[in-house]
């Protein structure tokens, strides 16, 4: 089964940059969400294995998505992808259950390393 990936970012350019950084040889399906509510809706349907989540989004931001994701005990690993790289931001998202924090612009090697740590090899 291919790994199902959700890329949640309000910027279509940012989504493109992230999808481009996913290694080409991976067996994955990629879905996109343009805001926090869309991201949560996709997670609630239960077919997201890994979500790449931006923090600064209008309406429901990444912190809000993480909070709801945890409150509702939704499935799927969440990797935060953010331009805001303050240490406090990193601590906050970890406390909210994100497994990793990747700095924008994303680096393909970093994504692969993070997933490998969680035993996901594609």
């Amino acid at each position: 089964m291919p790994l199902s990936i959700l890329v949640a970012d309000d910027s279509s350019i940012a989504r493109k940059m992230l999808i481009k950084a996913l290694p080409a040889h991976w067996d994955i399906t990629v879905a996109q969400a343009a805001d926090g509510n869309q991201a949560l809706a996709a997670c609630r349907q239960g077919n997201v294995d890994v979500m790449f989540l931006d923090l600064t989004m209008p309406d429901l931001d990444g912190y809000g998505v993480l909070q709801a994701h945890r409150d509702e005990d939704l499935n799927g690993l969440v990797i935060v992808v953010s331009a805001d790289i303050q240490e406090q931001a990193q601590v906050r998202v970890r406390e909210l259950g994100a497994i990793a924090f990747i700095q924008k612009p994303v680096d393909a090697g970093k994504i692969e390393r993070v997933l490998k740590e969680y035993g996901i090899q594609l």
Partner: protein
Amino acid sequence: MSTDLLTEDQREALQELVNIGMGQAGASIAQVLDEFVKLSIPRISSVAAANLSQEIVRLVGDADVSAIRQAFTTEFRGEAIVIYPEQSMAGLHEVMGYDADTKENKGEILLDIGNILVGACVGGIANLLGMLSAFSAPTLIADQTPAYRLLKPEHIQARVALLVEVYFVLEERDFRCHLIILMPETDILALGQALDRFVDGI
């Protein structure tokens, strides 16, 4: 008269680049001030020079402001202005490690913070576009000046200016500042072409 010099794709690409540059600026400021900095979502618009003053009042309110200016050169040129609403300055000298709230200390703080923001944000954008960038020394252009008098149309060389607005808020205190980037038309078009190349390369 249309003031849209960037296409929707170019504007969105610039917004993401500003977002990344600003993240670096925010992290630098957070480190200097040892506090969490809240970052806004950047807004990009083209503004007729004649309307710039009212745009600034819309951004920062009509209270008194101080401001610094820094020119930059990369494959396009422009200037960055960091605007500090006056009422948010109280106590900042302590955070920055100064004993007294003197005019000199305040000026230095504004120049220091402005320099970090502009370098990280504009330098970050240029870097992502694969360009080198250079900056003038920052200068204080306003000290307790009404916001509507900050920029006069006759000081803006271009008919249209690109307005890049971001702001930073310190959660623990009532501090905020706004960064705007002004570029003349020909440089906006050069930036647009660079953004096209960037998007094509993704």
